[in-house]
């Protein structure tokens, strides 16, 4: 999927007969596509919800209000709440730099932004274990017999600041896998928009921040919201990278997806599906928001064209 394709809408043209295929071919193709979607997307989703209520509504709410489930929900919201704003700021900054300025290493920056897309999340998790784990760089430094800065090693040991198998590691892993979402959404749009408006603003005497807030930000508003929604969805659902760095301590380092796995392995299948339905529900909200944003975006385009 190219992000540009979803955010850039060509102006609507009057209806014209573009396809000359007979009606039955069109109907066949449409029903094929729909039944495929029903079978592979809708049925499994419906199954999740029916399984979730298999032991009645009381058990469903008991599963959701369990203290371990709550701590998983809180941890997921915390990790998402840190990762999404950070990636939002980073994404806007990176997209702005790439689309509006020329500098050396621009392609390198673009490649780096794409890195989390191209490597497996499990590897992302392992990278953090190798760096921050007790046998990794930082850990070896803290545990070394003769560290270079004994006071620093002592302080780190004293604080017992943990990255891996603790909340910071989960937040780091979540940030890593969601880095590209906002930036990748904005770059094509900002490149297409060019820099004419910003240059005009500067010529008219606006400061850098004014240009950004009055000219650039309104132009990219909907794409930014769209990127944030996608980023949010991925941050909440991330399993692989978080699974490696979590240590799976129940009630402490289990996020919602990890908690679902733990419940499933406890033979508590109904409980697992109940929590899974919560995650699916969050995904559906995300989908709804996404559709709404696309609709708003299209409407704005239309009003701009007609005016």
């Amino acid at each position: 999927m190219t992000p540009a394709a979803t955010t850039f809408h060509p102006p609507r043209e009057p209806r014209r007969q573009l396809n000359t295929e007979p009606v039955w071919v069109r109907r066949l193709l449409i029903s094929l596509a729909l039944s495929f979607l029903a079978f592979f997307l809708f049925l499994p989703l419906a199954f999740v919800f029916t399984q979730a209520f298999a032991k009645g509504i009381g058990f469903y709410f008991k599963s959701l209000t369990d203290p371990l489930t709550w701590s998983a929900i809180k941890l997921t919201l915390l990790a998402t709440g840190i990762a999404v704003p950070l990636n939002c700021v980073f994404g806007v900054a990176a997209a702005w730099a790439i689309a509006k300025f020329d500098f050396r290493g621009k392609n390198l920056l673009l490649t780096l932004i794409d890195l989390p897309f191209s490597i497996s999340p499990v590897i992302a998790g392992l990278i953090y274990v190798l760096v921050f784990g007790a046998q990794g760089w930082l850990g070896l430094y803290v545990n070394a017999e003769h560290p270079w800065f004994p006071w620093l090693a002592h302080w780190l040991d004293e604080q017992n600041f943990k990255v891996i198998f603790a909340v910071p590691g989960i937040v780091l892993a979540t940030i890593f896998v969601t880095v590209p979402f906002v930036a990748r959404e904005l770059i094509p749009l900002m490149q297409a928009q060019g820099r004419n408006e910003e240059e005009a603003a500067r010529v008219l005497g606006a400061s850098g921040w004014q240009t950004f807030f009055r000219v650039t930000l309104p132009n990219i508003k909907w794409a930014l919201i769209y990127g944030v929604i996608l980023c949010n969805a991925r941050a909440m659902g991330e399993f692989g990278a978080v699974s490696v760095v979590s240590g799976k301590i129940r009630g402490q380092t289990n996020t919602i997806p990890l908690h679902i796995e733990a419940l499933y392995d406890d033979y508590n299948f109904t409980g697992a599906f109940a929590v899974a339905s919560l995650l699916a529900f969050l995904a559906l909200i995300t989908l709804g928001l996404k559709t709404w944003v696309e609709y708003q975006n299209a409407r704005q385009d239309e009003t701009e064209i007609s005016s």
Partner: protein
Amino acid sequence: MNKPVQRFLTICLVALAVTAPPIAASAKEIKLLNVSYDPTREFYTEYNAAFIRYWKAKTGDEVSISQSHGGSGKQAQSVVNGLEADVVTLGLAFDIDAIATQSRLLPADWQKKLPNNSSPYTSTIVFLVRKGNPKGIKDWEDLVKTGVKVVVPNPKTSGGARWAYLAAYAYALGQNHQDDVAAKVFIKKLYQNVPVLDPGARGATVTFAQREIGDVLLTWENEAHLVLKEFNSAGYEIVTPHQSILAEPPVAVVERTTKRRGTTAVAQAYLEYLYSDEGQELAGKHFYRPRNAKAAAKFAAQFTAVELVTIDQVFGGWAKAQKTHFADGGVFDQIYHP
């Protein structure tokens, strides 16, 4: 400062305030982390509650115990990498040896610190078959027949899978006058019948019972009994072979961690209480074979008599067995090609 900048900063501050991590709870509460292997989930849930009561009555202190479960080898690796366990209760001694040698978190002679090789309960490897035992599986010999699908986890990551592999190997040695070549042929045939290697015992059980793959599951005795209980409508049957291996899941205090966290006394008491009457009774209730004679007598009826070989007797101890069979390029790598 102009207005948009102000607004931007306000938004940032609000976002920060909303998402800032909650301040850590008061440090006075005693917290223990027990890093364990897969099939102990139900046992430790109940044992932790019992120990919290006991410790409260004895000292008046509140203690809360967190659990982490997974394949035994994987859990050991997590502890080596910094998972801050106060106690480890793993599937086999080699995994705790690995923690001792790779991270020096506990002394090399950890296994001498508690009675019975630091294993408060024992278990063995049995077969679990589908209702009515349609493939007629009675002993190890039946597992290598063509058309029999055997579900067993990966010995590289799972403790139970290593015990299962060694039990099969010990059987083959006994049948072939201790001939290693013949035993390898047997074990190779056995693993050719394995359609999927799950990373942990619990994953293998779910594969067998929930996803209905395979004809026979090789697993811990306690795990097999638990499946009978959890899936009682499915009519699974336990088949105990005439000979199996004495599996000793060991426990240990991670001394360097508890010293730093000031939890040595309570961690030690937590493990010692496993040997008490109540601990032993709970072990028996969750289908581990208790060490204590009283508890063993009480639960004798639920265990089938089986001839048990030990790892020291057949394989010369865990270190040697691990090196010969499960290390990179060892016998398992030679015979198993997925």
